[in-house]
């Protein structure tokens, strides 16, 4: 799997401008957009606080949520997995002694480690520049949960990609899934400001470990126990969705016709 992680890094480093846009330009732009939105919200509402937290806190949350959510999503690799099955390029993985799951998980992790390491500069710079509250000593544990959550993301990608064996073209399912996850992860807003019973449901789901838990912990809104609960909740998610992914993959493989080659 380390070889696949290295492969992803090599591929990213091959295209310098694309890497620059991905790791520098995008995080700055997204961070600024999120901050502007929350600034506009506080300016127009005339409120100084929301659910017990001040304007600066929400700006910091928005900034880090934008950053962490980029880490905890997998548009690119999920699309590649779907495309591999649709076009038959999955053959080059199937004939080698490596699993499709491991091959793409390795690449996903390699890509995320490289891009996260570089693009961390964006939220840290903006936080210091705007003097926003953040506890950087909490960053390693917050990122650890985010990367653990990525395994669950990859399992979901396996489920969606496996559906490609049955329906051939399923790219729009990825879009629908990601829009749903945006709601569930806490990227739009801290999940604990949602009304009950949504608050309890949303925070109990493993998807809260994508953004809400790590960012809440990083910005000192949540205690460390929420991170541990996040690990537990993701583990349960893996135990539930892992067998579904394996089942669909095996069923799909039996139908596969080795398209296009």
């Amino acid at each position, binding site marked *: 799997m380390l070889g696949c992680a290295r492969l992803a890094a*090599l591929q990213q480093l091959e295209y310098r401008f694309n890497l620059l846009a991905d790791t520098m330009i995008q995080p700055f732009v997204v961070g600024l957009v999120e901050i502007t939105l929350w600034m506009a919200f506080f300016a127009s509402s005339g409120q100084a606080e929301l659910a017990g937290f001040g304007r600066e806190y929400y700006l910091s949350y928005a900034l880090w949520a934008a950053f962490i959510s980029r880490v905890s999503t997998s548009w690119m690799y999920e699309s590649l997995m779907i495309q591999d099955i649709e076009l038959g*390029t999955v*053959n080059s993985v*199937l*004939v080698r002694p490596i699993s499709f799951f491991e091959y793409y998980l390795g690449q996903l992790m390699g890509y995320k480690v490289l891009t996260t390491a570089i693009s961390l500069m964006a939220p840290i710079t903006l936080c210091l520049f705007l003097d926003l509250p953040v506890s950087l000593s909490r960053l390693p544990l917050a990122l650890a949960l985010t990367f653990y959550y990525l395994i669950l993301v990859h399992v979901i990608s396996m489920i969606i990609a496996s559906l490609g064996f049955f329906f051939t073209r399923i790219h729009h399912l990825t879009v629908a899934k990601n829009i749903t996850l945006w709601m569930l992860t806490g990227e739009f807003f801290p999940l604990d400001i949602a009304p009950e019973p949504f608050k309890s449901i949303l925070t109990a789901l493993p998807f809260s470990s994508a953004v809400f838990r790590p960012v809440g912990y990083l910005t000192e809104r949540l205690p460390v126990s929420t991170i541990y609960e996040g690990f537990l909740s993701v583990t349960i998610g893996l135990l539930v969705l892992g067998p579904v992914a394996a089942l669909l993959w095996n069923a799909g493989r039996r139908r596969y*016709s*080795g398209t296009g080659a």
Partner: protein
Amino acid sequence: MINIETENLTRTYETYRKPEGLLKSIQGLWARKVEQKVAVHPTTLSIAKGEIVGLVGSNGAGKTTLLKLLSGLIHPSGGSAKVLGYAPTSRDPEFLKRISILLGQKNQLWWDLPPADSYDLLARIYEINPIEARSRVRELAELLQCSEQLHVQLRRLSLGERMKMEIIGALLHQPEVLFLDEPTIGLDIIAQTTIREFLATYVKERKPTLILTSHYMDDISLLADRLLLISQGSIVYDGSVEEFVAKAENRQTLSLKLLNPPTTDVSIAGHFQLEAGTRNIKVELAANVIGDVLQALMSLSPVQEIKIEEVEFEDVIHSFMQQDARMRASSSAPAARV
């Protein structure tokens, strides 16, 4: 020792036929007529260790499907296969380390990277010592005359150079069983020759079990010691290349030029009809009737030029396949074996 064996191995594909037009496309949202297409009819085969098998057939005959079944890429609809004692669909890592499949129309190396980086990853996947892997790459690249391109991104290489790199990637782990699907397709004559000669040397030295498909009969006649002809999913000939050519009649091509073309249509010794005014003649005939035909033509007119050639292996295959297709079209019964 048998390396590959199949028993009634079958593969059926499910397709649906879509009538043209927008309305029919809308109807297709809820009603699709699914059809079953047999790509490989029940096939029983056994291939010994070290045997080089040429698998020949027209487009859509089932060659690639058979290779995909044997390499475990696709599951059979019926029957069974064993390669090196493994069921290919099990995807046992030990099995996958001992085989290789090269699909000539697909890139299996990484598009964005120089081949050297791809080989490095392959060495990790196949658990080959990195130093040993580099030495093998150097050796293979020298034989294929492509050492200069090892550090150029795959996307920047020509088709011929890419194919050479793909071959190195397929052979890096020294597979015992090798499936090569059209390794010379689309290449210029120089690249074809280089690859053909390389493969001839490689199989002679390493003695892998090899199944090779190709549209170029030179590939088959140079490399294969056994020929499998496949037509519409069925094996219609299984024997040696020499036997095939001998059994499919000893045919020759007669080319000549008449000084005085006939003024009316004439039957030439009952073997073919010569139209009035024809001066240049080129016909393919059984060797034992050439004398009668020549005699008949020379009695008709003095002959200016004359040439008698052996029919190429490719032409024999071509006419056999045409004959088989005609037989299948006129009857649903299986084609006669040569």
